[in-house]
C-alpha cells in the first residue's frame, strides 16, 4: 500500500521541478529586461564629483539670458549624453527649473516633485526653484534638436517614434535633411520605411509633377494616417488627373493593407481572449472533465490566485518586477491546498451526485467571496504590472500589440502543454485517467483513488490559481472576479467536449475568435449574448461537445 503513495509524492516533486524550470526560464527572461534597464543609466553617468564640460554647460544653460541660452543649447547638442534629451524636452515644455546658487541646482519638475537633472536624484524640496524661461525661437530650435537626438538614439523604437512624430508634426526642409542623413546609416527596416514615407510626404509638396507622382507611388501602401490624408486630398482635389488616378490607386492599396492588418489584429485579440478563456477553463477541464465534478467555486479559486498576486506585491514591494514569477507558484500552492481542502471536506461525500456537488460548491463560492470581502475589502485591489510586461509592441502604424496580452497568450499555451504533459506522461496522470474511467478497477489494482481524487482536484484548483495570476494583469482584482468567468469557463469545457484537453484548447480559441469577430458588428454585450445562444444551440446538436469521448463507455 506504501508504493503508490510514494510514487505520488515523487510525482508531485517532479511536477514541482517542472514548475521551477518554467519559473527559471521566465525569470531569466525578466532578468534580461532588468539588466538592460539597469545598464542604460550607468553608461552615461560620469563621476559627479568633478563637474565636466557637459555639466558646466548645463549650469550655463539655466543662467544667462535668452540669446546666450540659444548658443548654449547649440553647444550642448553635440554632446552624446544620456541626460540630454530629458533636459531639452523639459526645457521646451517649461518644466526645467533652477535655483540661484552657483553652481545652480538644475531640476526637472514633474507635478509636485522635482528630480535633479544631472544626478537623477529626487530633490527633497522644491523651494527656490524657478522656471527657466524659453521663447518660441528657442522652442523651435529645441524641437529640432530633440528630434535629431532621438533620431540617433540607440533604441530603434525611439527612432521610429521620432520619425513618426516628425511625420505628424509636418516635414520641412530641415527635418528632411536630417532624415536623409539618418537614412544612410539606419539599419532597422521599420525605421527605414517610416523615413521613406516621411520623405515621400515632403516630396508631395514639390513643384515638379514627376517628383510628386513618384512620391504618390512611394506612398502607396503606407499605413501612416498622414499619408492617407494627403493622398485622399490629392485624389479628391488635385488638378493633375494622372496624379489623381495614381493617388486613388495608392489609397486603394492602402485600404487593402489596412483591412489585412485589422484582420490580423482581430485574430490576435481573438486568440488573446481565447487564451484568457483557456486559462480560466483549463482547471475546470480537469475537475469537471476528468473527475466529473462540477466545481462552481472554480471562479473563486481564480480570484484567490489573483489575490495572491496582490498579496505578493504587498508583502514584497521592492520585488514588483519579480512579483508575477513569485506569485505563480505561490498561487498554485495556495489554491491547490484550498482545492484539496474542498475535496476532502465536501466533494468526496458527493461523488456520483453531480447536481448536489454543484449546489455545495456554489455555496462554497459564496463563502469564499464573502471571506475575501470581509478579510480584505469589497473594493477592488490594485495589482501593478511589472515593467517587462507593460508597454506595446508597435509593428506598424495600424497594428500594435500589448505585451500583456502577448505574454498571457504564450503563458496560457505553456500552462496547457504543461498540463497535457502531466496528464499524458506522468504516473499521476495515468492514475487520474484510470480512476476517471473505472474507479473500482483502479482501486483493485492498487491505486489509492481517494488520494488521486484529492490530488487531481488540487491540480485543477492550482491551475485556476495560476489563471488568477494572469488575469490579475488584465482585469480588476475584486471579490467578484470569479463570477465573471465561471459561466464562460463551463461553456468552454462543454463546447470542447468533456474530458478532452485538446477540445478545451480548440473551443477556448474558437470562442475567443468568434466573440472578437462578432464584436465590431454587434457590440460587446450582444456579441456575448450571441455566442451564448450559439453555444446553447450547439449543445442541442452535439450534446457531447466538439470532441466527444467515444466508445462503449461513453454510450452509457
Amino acid at each position, binding site marked *: 500500500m506504501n508504493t503508490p503513495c510514494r510514487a505520488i509524492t515523487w510525482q508531485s516533486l517532479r511536477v514541482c521541478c517542472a514548475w521551477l524550470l518554467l519559473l527559471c526560464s521566465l525569470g531569466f527572461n525578466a532578468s534580461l529586461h532588468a539588466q538592460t534597464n539597469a545598464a542604460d543609466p550607468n553608461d552615461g553617468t560620469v563621476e559627479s564629483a568633478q563637474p565636466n564640460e557637459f555639466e558646466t554647460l548645463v549650469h550655463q544653460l539655466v543662467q544667462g539670458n535668452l540669446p546666450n541660452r540659444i548658443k548654449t543649447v547649440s553647444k550642448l547638442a553635440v554632446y552624446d549624453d544620456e541626460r540630454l534629451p530629458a533636459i531639452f524636452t523639459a526645457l521646451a515644455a517649461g518644466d526645467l527649473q533652477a535655483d540661484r546658487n552657483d553652481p545652480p541646482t538644475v531640476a526637472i519638475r514633474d507635478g509636485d516633485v522635482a528630480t535633479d537633472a544631472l544626478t537623477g536624484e529626487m530633490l527633497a524640496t522644491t523651494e527656490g526653484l524657478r522656471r527657466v524661461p524659453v521663447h518660441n525661437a528657442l522652442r523651435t530650435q529645441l524641437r529640432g534638436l530633440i528630434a535629431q537626438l532621438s533620431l540617433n538614439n540607440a533604441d530603434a523604437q525611439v527612432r521610429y517614434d521620432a520619425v513618426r512624430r516628425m511625420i505628424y508634426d509636418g516635414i520641412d526642409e530641415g527635418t528632411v535633411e536630417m532624415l536623409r542623413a539618418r537614412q544612410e546609416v539606419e539599419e532597422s527596416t521599420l525605421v527605414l520605411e517610416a523615413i521613406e514615407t516621411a520623405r515621400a510626404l515632403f516630396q508631395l509638396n514639390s513643384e515638379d509633377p514627376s517628383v510628386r507622382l513618384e512620391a504618390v507611388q512611394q506612398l502607396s501602401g503606407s499605413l501612416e494616417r498622414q499619408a492617407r490624408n494627403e493622398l485622399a486630398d490629392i485624389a479628391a482635389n488635385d488638378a493633375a488627373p494622372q496624379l489623381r488616378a495614381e493617388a486613388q490607386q495608392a489609397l486603394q492599396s492602402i485600404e487593402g493593407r489596412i483591412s489585412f492588418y485589422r484582420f490580423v489584429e482581430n485574430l490576435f485579440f481573438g486568440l488573446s481572449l481565447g487564451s484568457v478563456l483557456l486559462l480560466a477553463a483549463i482547471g475546470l477541464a480537469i475537475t469537471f472533465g476528468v473527475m466529473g465534478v462540477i466545481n462552481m467555486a472554480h471562479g473563486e479559486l481564480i480570484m484567490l490566485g489573483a489575490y495572491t498576486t496582490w498579496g505578493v506585491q504587498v508583502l514584497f514591494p521592492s520585488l514588483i518586477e519579480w512579483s508575477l514569477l513569485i506569485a505563480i507558484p505561490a498561487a498554485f500552492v495556495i489554491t491547490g491546498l484550498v482545492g484539496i481542502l474542498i475535496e476532502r471536506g465536501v466533494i468526496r461525500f458527493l461523488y456520483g451526485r453531480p447536481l448536489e456537488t454543484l449546489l455545495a460548491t456554489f455555496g462554497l463560492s459564496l463563502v469564499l467571496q464573502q471571506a475575501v470581502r470581509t478579510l480584505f475589502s469589497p473594493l477592488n485591489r490594485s495589482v501593478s504590472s511589472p515593467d517587462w510586461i507593460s508597454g506595446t509592441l508597435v509593428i506598424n502604424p495600424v497594428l500594435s500589440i500589448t505585451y500583456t496580452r502577448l505574454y498571457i497568450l504564450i503563458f496560457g499555451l505553456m500552462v496547457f502543454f504543461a498540463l497535457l504533459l502531466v496528464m499524458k506522461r506522468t504516473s499521476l496522470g495515468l492514475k487520474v485517467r484510470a480512476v476517471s474511467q473505472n474507479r473500482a478497477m483502479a482501486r483493485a489494482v492498487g491505486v489509492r483513488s481517494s488520494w488521486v481524487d484529492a490530488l487531481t482536484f488540487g491540480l485543477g484548483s492550482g491551475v485556476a490559481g495560476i489563471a488568477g495570476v494572469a488575469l490579475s494583469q488584465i482585469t480588476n482584482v475584486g471579490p467578484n472576479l470569479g463570477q465573471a468567468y465561471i459561466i464562460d469557463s463551463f461553456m468552454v469545457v462543454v463546447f470542447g467536449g468533456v474530458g478532452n484537453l485538446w477540445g478545451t484548447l480548440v473551443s477556448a480559441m474558437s470562442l475567443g475568435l468568434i466573440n472578437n469577430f462578432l464584436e465590431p458588428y454587434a457590440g460587446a454585450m450582444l456579441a456575448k449574448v450571441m455566442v451564448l445562444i450559439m453555444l446553447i444551440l450547439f449543445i442541442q446538436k452535439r450534446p457531447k461537445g466538439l470532441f466527444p469521448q467515444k466508445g*462503449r463507455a461513453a454510450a452509457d
Partner: protein
Amino acid sequence: MKTTEQLRETWRRDQVFDFVQPPPAFDSVVDTTHGPILYVENISVSFDGFKALNNLDLTIDEGELRCIIGPNGAGKTTMMDVITGKTKPDTGSIWFGQRIDLLKRSEHQIARGGIGRKFQKPTVFEALSVFENLELATASKKNVWYTLNNDLNGEQRDRIDEVLRQTGLTEHYHQEAGALSHGQKQWLEIGMLLVQNPRVLLVDEPVAGMTGEEVEKTAELLTSLAGRHSVIVVEHDMAFVRSIARKVTVLHQGSVLAEGSMDQVQNNPRVIEVYLGE
C-alpha cells in the same frame, strides 16, 4: 468531402425533412402471415472502430422461446439495444412482422408497438409501489394529456391483478418496489413487460443473482409465456438455458456462430472452440 455530401443531401430540392412528415404510426396489426415476427437482417454496429455487431442475421418465430448465449462482448446487449431502438445500427434492417420497419421508430413507439424489454440489472421504479409500477407499464394511451386526466379502467386493473398472480407478487401489492428482494424485482420487471401486452419479450439475464428456487420459478414463468408471446432470453447460466431452451443461438464477435437445439449447439466444434479457447 463527407460534409459537402451531407450538405448536398440536405439542400436537395426534393428533400422532404423528417419533421414535416407525420410521425410514423404503428400499424395496429403486426403481420406475421409468414411465421416469423422479428427479422434482424445484416445488422452492423461499431463503436469507435470496435465492431459490436457484425452482419448479424436473426429470425424469431411467433410464440417461440429463444435463448441467446455467447461469451462476454459477443454483442448480446447491443443486439437488444438495436431492436429496442436505443442504438441505431450502421447498416442493416429490422422488421417487426412483414410490414413494420423498426429502425424508423423511436424507443417509446417500439415499446408501445409490442416489444418489451427487461434490463440486465433489474430496473423498477423504486419510489413507487408494486401496483404503481405495473400501472405505469400497463398498455393504454400514454400521452401527457391522457395520463394527466385519466386513471386506469376496470379492464386494465383486472389485467394487473392477473399479472400480479402470475408473478406471485399479489401480497406485495402495496409495498414500495425498492423494498423487494432481488428476485422479486426481476419478476416485477417481467410483470411490467407482461402488462404491456407485448408480442415480443426481450429478457436480459433474468436469473442473475437468483437462488435455486427462484431460478426454477422463473424458468416456469418464462416457459408458460412462450406460445402467447415470443420470448428472447439472453443468459449466461447454462443449466438454466438447458432447462427452458428449445432453440439456442450462439453469438460470437457480433454475429451468429451456431443455431439449433441445446445438444446440437453444445456439440458444435466451433462453439466448443470459442468457449474453451483455442
